[in-house]
């Protein structure tokens, strides 16, 4: 249960990236899963190279993600904004295919893992593994930093303005292109970061991103769009749920349950459980 809660924080972080991009530019970023997988491999390579504490390596990984995100924005998203949603779905998906294709060629689809363990904390007869706690704390810190950035800085204010009304923001002298590129970059950075955190918990392959992408969609829909802290809370909720059901049923059933949840929530609460009428 508690492990579920801690893992859930990481799900939440992944979903925040998706939710931010979706909320700001109305693009469903289908590169998300591939970027999570890239985060895992970035962690693997950096850790193998430097053998520093993985949780410190998060900082450069977030930086890589930001740059990568801006690049992907220019490559695939910028040109299809304002066209039908089909086009942005397809263009981000094509980037996804290329990343997965290159990744498969480089690393094949065999599993990797980051060989690092922190000492756990024992309470009574139950031990929390250190990695889970550290990953959850890192996710929380990143989430708080994002919240501060969005609500306490000029840039964050600009992002929120563009999300609200792009034309009006342009009229106020905000360069919406730059803002969108940066928002996309942050979204991708969050995906890479969450991937990096997951890689310290479980073994992974280049295709693992897809699993977390589905979880991110479920979480985003649960939380409603464009609410970073809502996404974090919904992520924790999903993690708890997974932790609660795994003792009773086989792990392979989980996608079915998550998907059922996704459809039910979409139909009953189209604006998300934490959503207000003006989502």
């Amino acid at each position: 249960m508690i492990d579920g809660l801690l893992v859930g924080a990481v799900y939440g972080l992944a979903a925040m990236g998706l939710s931010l991009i979706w909320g700001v530019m109305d693009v469903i970023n289908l590169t998300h899963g591939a970027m999570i997988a890239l985060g895992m491999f970035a962690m693997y390579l950096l850790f193998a190279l430097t053998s520093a504490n993985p949780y410190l390596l998060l900082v450069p990984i977030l930086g890589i993600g930001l740059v990568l995100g801006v690049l992907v924005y220019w490559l695939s998203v910028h040109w299809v904004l304002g066209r039908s949603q089909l086009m942005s779905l397809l263009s981000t998906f094509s980037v996804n295919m290329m990343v997965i294709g290159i990744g498969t060629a480089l690393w094949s689809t065999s599993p990797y893992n980051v060989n690092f363990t922190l000492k756990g904390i024992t309470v009574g007869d139950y031990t929390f593994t250190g990695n889970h706690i550290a990953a959850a704390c890192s996710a929380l810190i990143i989430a708080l930093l994002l919240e501060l950035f969005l609500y306490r800085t000029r840039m964050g204010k600009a992002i929120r303005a563009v999300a609200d009304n792009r034309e009006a923001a342009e009229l106020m002298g905000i360069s919406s292109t730059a803002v969108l590129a940066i928002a996309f970059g942050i979204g991708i950075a969050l995906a890479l970061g969450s991937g990096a955190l997951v890689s310290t918990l479980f073994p992974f392959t280049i295709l693992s991103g897809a699993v977390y992408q589905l979880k991110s969609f479920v979480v985003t829909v649960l939380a409603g769009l464009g609410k970073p802290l809502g996404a974090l809370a919904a992520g924790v909720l999903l993690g708890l749920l997974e932790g609660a059901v795994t003792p009773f049923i086989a792990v392979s059933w989980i996608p079915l349950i998550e998907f059922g949840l996704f459809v039910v929530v979409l139909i009953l609460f189209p604006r998300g459980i934490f959503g207000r009428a003006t989502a």
Partner: protein
Amino acid sequence: VIFKRPSFWLTLLLAAVFVYLPMRGNDAALREDLILVAVAIILVSNLNLMIGYTGYVNFGHIVFYGLGGYVGLYLVSARGWHLPSAALTAGVFVSICALLFGLGVLRLRGAYFALATVGILVAVHAFVSNFDPWGRSTGMYLPFEAYEPLGGAMRALWTTYYLIIAVMTLSMILSLTIKRSKFGLGLFAIREDEDAAVVLGINATVYKAIIYSVSAFLPAVAGALMFYKNGMIDPSIAFEYMLSIEGIVMLMLGGQGTVIGAAMGAGLYERLRSYLLTQPRLSNFHLVIAGGLLLVVVLFASSGLIGWLYRFVPRSREVIE
């Protein structure tokens, strides 16, 4: 009337070529190549009903094919049914599932529906991998005797090939028929502006659910035929996500919304893929190439090959639809 439309005769011509070429030299290798092209055309034509006609992306289209294969193979191997009745039953069963499901899920608009279709694929995959009568994750095998009713395995391969060609022809004729029907016009209206269509009295949810279900039927039949021909099925072959996606690439490449374009894209891409997969240096990169191709089409030529043709030979609009 459909007989007056050149595209109808083009479709029949294509089918005749598909039947004649491998039969002439009793060429089994060519037949195996063409059957893959035919299956691609079946999948893409029916996907076109959703994406091209209605404007709804279905990322999990392959689920119909895989589920049809499972139902068909189960009926043949465990119940001893004959192939034609098993394939038709598979089609009907999958269509009914799609209809019931569509009535629920298609209340979702646009991108939310697209996400739901990814979920459907993952969920069905998870379900079948845990379903005992269908052999869980190891799947099912067909005993050799199952081919007896069709006159042994050799004859059965040819018979299933002709059946697949028939399904391919039906798929294209179905697309042509819907395109010029009142129902088809309703779908186009939903694609252009769903709110306006609803105001004009189109029951969008029912229309979408019906086309979702229709687009499930022939792929399910084809799945039953193909997996019968292959003699085995397991979840990762039946519900291959990448194949589902490649269907979208094929459709965009040829030209979404057009019948001949969909078939052209399917044929071209399928041949390209077979070529890449057999080149030792390139086989790892076929996804990269497919992705790049999709990106280029989306960014620079969103109406596909047919769009080019229309632009340079405007008269072709009247002949090719």
